[in-house]
């Protein structure tokens, strides 16, 4: 029996544990426990005061019961009592109970804190350690409040015992992690850093965890630790295996401390001091050399400890990413491990190589191991190792090996573990898109994906293939042909039906010339799958059918027949039923011209972050996909989209207006579009005063459309005069309002227009005041807001015109008011236009102005520290994210005026951020419905030259550019 049970054990506890172990069933165990709980409760409540020993024993029993998985709701008070016992074992059990079963009961915490305070003051190192352990275990806010100022003192005091120092360091670390605001290191910083020099290895080992954490948060203040860490590391690395006595572990000197030192160095860039750097490089070389030496022991502990240091050293080399020689050596070393007999090493080598692959210095070296990695993917018996191999293949993929890697991943997918299939699918999809030189290969790959692992192909993946096919006309015919063939398979995945349905609906005409894929055959093929599909897919197919009616008039009667049958038109699913009804109606009453407009080919999709990359990022957590990878994805995506110039302005405007996800949007889109196209046929330019474009009412609009169609469409006319082009001075007028929200927008001899506006997040409200300066009535007064040319109308106006059309008269000297509600859906550059028409003394006045709505109106100011600011500034370092202008000052360079203007811009003006006090830096986030765009601004006045340099950085190039243009006019 172990030494401990010689005489000091608690016999009652041992008996109880034996009883529990002898229980034959769960029920018997619960019965025994309940009996014990009742017993303990009665003892605690009993009149007879319990002695310390009994209390300790019962508290320990409770602890055991708790660890068996039962809830304990009493005994806390008794445990707290034990804390103030002067017997060590009683105190120890009390602390253990508190540590394991902390209760946020504030009354108790106060008592616990009292006991801790006494023990910390006791100067008995054993008691002090117990108290420190308890603080570290509980780590609550109240404890931090009580002790955060005391513990640093204990840590650095000259007379503190080493063991207490160790506990104090880690206790402080825990408090810093839970309540960083309460741990103020200021005056202690230098003494804490110098613990790295402590003679006692245990103290250094404990302290370095604290120093690493503090350095991560305050790198500047702690940067002296770099040279200390390097010299400590150097001493360990060059020491003989016995020098460090008990800190040598299986012939490896201080492996834990070495790893921690290497980790600490990863908080910093390479040392600037040449001597320090030289010494460090020497250490890293020694570590790499040692890996080649024969092992000093056959024990796995020896090789683990040695390799732990090696992997940490490689992590540091990768972190520095500046020593090509070391990077290549690291890569070779990992290459050896790839074929090591230890599974653990193969796993770690694959993992570590993944990060090496992203370094430009070692990317090529990593690629040479492709065959080994592919064979690992095929032959490793452990799924977690295969997962790493797949990750590495993904990381080492580039244009030169993409086809091979994608093919290998696809073939692996057929037998892959279920747990990693979805991620594999995403990776294949991303690689196929990123490195597609020929798009038929891309289409084949994705269709293969759907065939092999259809269940794991998420929406994002098949949305993406459609986006790409739509945006590239050179692949559309091929895509149509391939999906048509894929659909021939007797059992094809529903995702294939979706992709097939969509693509044939758009581009079926490209293969209709072949008698083997004539329109009717295409339709019959799709419809043969219809009944096996879920509701969303059927809804999609119905949209395909209406598109077919437009593409192939000869299918009209067959499709109408299908739409008309009871299973569609009376379908119990509202969505299907409504689509059937509306499509049937649309197909029977709209003329071919109208149909052709309504059902026109989808316009190219606006390029945004690849939806699948975003998905992978979400899946793996941020950091899994590097920023550059995202950017690259974007860039390549942009390339994909560059070609096609066949925008249907109306459609695209509506598309962006609705900014709905890909496919589900087709239906409401069609509804809205139908309406608008009809209206536009009769209206000419698209002005819709008093019609609220509420998304939720699209059905209503569709009904309205059908009404309009079935009555005489030509009879509805809303006034046909063209709007005049914007006034020449309208840009200048607009610029006046960039940094302010209220004022006079326009004035001539007849009319004055005042503006008042307010914005909150992505919403705004604008009041326009129209003043008649004459003594004569304005007749037929009307106003309309339109979005310009390309109508990248990312702002949705729901107009609420207070002057009703019935009284289009503004009396002489009177003022009328109009309210505009504004919602910013996405970022935009062009301001919307306001057109005013009225008759004054028989002459028609027609004025068009730019409405003073600019992107900066949707700024939310963001306060940030200097460090945060520059970190973000660096993150936005791609050339397209920055816009810069150097321009001559138009007004006096008064700092106060500049400040007022920058505040008016809507950003936060950050003080004490820029090292040069003459400069101004601002930060803000533009709130649009679609997304938020963070922007940073820096304005550098040069008083001597009377010039400014203005730099804007934001995550969106158009935003940086637009803000830069707007602001350059302000100073």
């Amino acid at each position, binding site marked *: 029996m172990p030494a401990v049970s010689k005489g000091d*054990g608690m*016999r009652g506890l041992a008996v109880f544990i034996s009883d529990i172990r002898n229980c034959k069933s769960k029920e018997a165990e619960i019965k025994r426990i309940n009996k014990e709980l009742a017993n303990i409760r009665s003892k605690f409540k009993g009149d007879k005061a319990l002695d310390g020993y009994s209390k300790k024993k019962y508290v320990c029993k409770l602890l055991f019961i708790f660890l068996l998985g039962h809830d304990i709701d009493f005994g806390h008070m008794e445990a707290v009592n034990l804390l103030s016992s002067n017997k060590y074992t009683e105190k120890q059990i009390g602390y253990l109970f508190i540590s394991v079963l902390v209760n946020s009961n504030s009354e108790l915490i106060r008592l616990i804190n009292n006991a801790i305070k006494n023990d910390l003051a006791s100067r008995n190192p054993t008691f002090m350690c117990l108290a420190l352990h308890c603080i570290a275990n509980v780590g609550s806010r109240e404890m931090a409040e009580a002790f955060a100022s005391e513990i640093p003192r204990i840590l650095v005091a000259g007379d503190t015992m080493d063991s207490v120092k160790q506990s104090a360091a880690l206790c402080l670390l825990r408090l810093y992690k839970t309540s960083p605001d309460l741990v103020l290191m200021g005056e202690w910083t230098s003494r804490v850093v110098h613990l790295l020099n402590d003679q006692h290895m245990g103290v250094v080992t404990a302290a370095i965890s604290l120093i690493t954490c503090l350095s991560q948060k305050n790198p500047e203040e702690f940067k002296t630790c770099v040279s200390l860490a390097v010299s400590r590391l150097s001493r360990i690395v060059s020491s003989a295996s016995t020098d460090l006595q008990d800190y040598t572990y299986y012939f490896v000197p201080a492996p834990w401390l070495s790893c921690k030192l290497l980790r600490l160095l990863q908080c910093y860039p390479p040392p600037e001091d040449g001597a320090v750097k030289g010494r460090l490089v020497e250490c890293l070389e020694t570590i790499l050399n040692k890996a080649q030496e024969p092992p000093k022991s056959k024990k796995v502990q020896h090789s*683990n400890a040695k390799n732990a240091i090696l992997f940490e050293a490689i992590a540091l080399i990768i972190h520095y990413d500046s020593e090509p020689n070391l990077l290549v050596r690291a890569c070779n070393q990992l290459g050896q491990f790839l074929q090591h007999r230890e599974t653990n090493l193969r796993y770690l080598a694959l993992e570590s190589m993944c990060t090496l692959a992203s370094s430009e210095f070692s990317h090529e070296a990593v690629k040479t191991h492709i065959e080994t990695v592919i064979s690992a993917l095929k032959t490793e018996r452990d799924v977690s190792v295969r997962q790493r191999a797949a990750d590495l293949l993904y990381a080492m993929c580039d244009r030169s090996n993409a086809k091979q890697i994608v093919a290998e991943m696809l073939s692996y997918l057929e037998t892959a573990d279920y747990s990693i299939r979805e991620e594999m699918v995403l990776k294949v999809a991303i690689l196929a898109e990123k490195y597609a030189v020929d798009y038929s290969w891309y289409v084949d790959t994705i269709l293969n994906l759907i065939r092999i692992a259809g269940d794991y192909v998420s929406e994002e993946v098949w949305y993406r293939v459609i986006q790409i096919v739509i945006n590239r006309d050179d692949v559309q015919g091929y895509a149509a042909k391939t999906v048509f063939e894929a659909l021939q398979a007797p059992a094809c995945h529903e995702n294939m039906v979706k992709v097939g349905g969509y693509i044939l609906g758009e581009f079926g005409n490209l293969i209709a010339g072949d008698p083997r894929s004539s329109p009717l055959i295409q339709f019959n093929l799709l419809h043969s799958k219809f009944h096996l599909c879920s509701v969303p897919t059927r809804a999609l197919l119905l949209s395909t059918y209406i598109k077919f009616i437009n593409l192939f008039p000869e299918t009209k009667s067959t499709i109408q027949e299908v739409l008309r049958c009871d299973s569609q038109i009376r379908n119990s699913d509202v969505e299907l039923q409504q689509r059937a009804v509306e499509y049937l109606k649309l197909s029977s009453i709209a003329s071919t011209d109208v149909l052709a407009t309504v059902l026109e080919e989808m316009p190219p999709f606006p390029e945004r972050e690849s939806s699948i990359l975003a998905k992978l990022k979400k899946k793996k957590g941020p950091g899994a996909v590097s920023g550059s990878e995202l950017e690259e994805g974007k860039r390549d995506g942009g390339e994909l989209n560059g070609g096609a110039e066949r925008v249907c302005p109306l459609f695209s405007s509506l598309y962006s207006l609705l900014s709905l996800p890909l496919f589900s949007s087709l239906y409401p889109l069609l509804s809205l579009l139908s309406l608008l196209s009809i209206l536009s046929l009769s209206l000419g330019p698209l002005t819709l005063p008093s019609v609220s474009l509420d998304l939720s009412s699209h059905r209503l609009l569709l009904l309205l459309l059908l009404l309009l169609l079935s009555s005489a469409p030509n009879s509805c006319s809303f006034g046909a005069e063209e709007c005049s082009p914007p006034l020449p001075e309208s840009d200048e007028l607009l610029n006046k309002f960039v940094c302010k929200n209220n004022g006079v927008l326009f004035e001539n001899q007849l009319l004055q227009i005042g503006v008042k506006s307010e914005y909150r997040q992505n919403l705004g409200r604008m009041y326009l005041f129209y003043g008649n300066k004459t003594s004569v009535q304005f007749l037929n007064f009307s106003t309309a807001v339109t979005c310009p040319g390309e109508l990248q109308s990312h702002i949705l106006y729901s107009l609420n015109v207070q002057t009703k059309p019935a009284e289009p008269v503004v009396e002489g000297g009177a003022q009328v008011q109009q309210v505009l509600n504004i919602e910013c859906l996405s970022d935009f550059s062009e301001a919307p236009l306001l057109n005013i028409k009225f008759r004054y003394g028989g002459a028609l006045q027609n004025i068009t102005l730019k409405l003073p709505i600019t992107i900066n109106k949707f700024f939310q100011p963001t306060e940030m520290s200097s460090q945060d600011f520059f970190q973000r500034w660096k993150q936005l370092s791609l050339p397209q994210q920055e816009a810069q202008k150097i321009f001559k000052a138009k007004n006096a360079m008064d700092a106060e005026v500049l400040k007022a203007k920058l505040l008016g811009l809507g950003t936060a003006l950050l003080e004490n951020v820029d090292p040069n006090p003459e400069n101004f830096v601002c930060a803000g986030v533009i709130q649009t419905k679609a997304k938020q765009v963070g922007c940073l601004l820096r304005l550098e006045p040069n008083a001597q030259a009377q010039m400014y340099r203005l730099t804007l950085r934001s995550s969106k190039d158009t935003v940086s550019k637009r803000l830069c243009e707007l602001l350059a006019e302000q100073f």
Partner: protein
Amino acid sequence: MMRFMLLFSRQGKLRLQKWYTAAAERDRKKMVRELMQVVLARKPKMCSFLEWRDLKIVYKRYASLYFCCAVEEQDNELVTLEVIHRFVELLDKYFGSVCELDIIFNFEKAYFILDEFLMGGEIQDTSKKSVLKAIEQADLLQEEDESPRSVLEEMGLA
């Protein structure tokens, strides 16, 4: 830093749990259940590391007991493996060829040893000597404390 350490048997009985971050009891139970299932399903030759939620799991089996640590993304797996081994060595040295029963019957001792070795999820001391010295000192205090008691008294019958 280490987030938690679990010791459980091949039968899925939890023998020791040490948490270094705050979490609701319910979540802890769920995590323990889930993780035991994952680890127990793995075959002997498989690697000792796996990704689980946002953590890295490092585990090793000693006789009938699994030692399982959850560490963070940037932590070193191999060194964690040796943390486990060092802990086993400490238990072994203290109990004298430790077995699962020792840990069951002296769970509080196992906690004390672990506390001397790790604190707040970080290593306090890697020296076997220092850790054991601390525990032995405590045991000495304990022996001084305790006056012998009769068996009947122990069992609460006196």
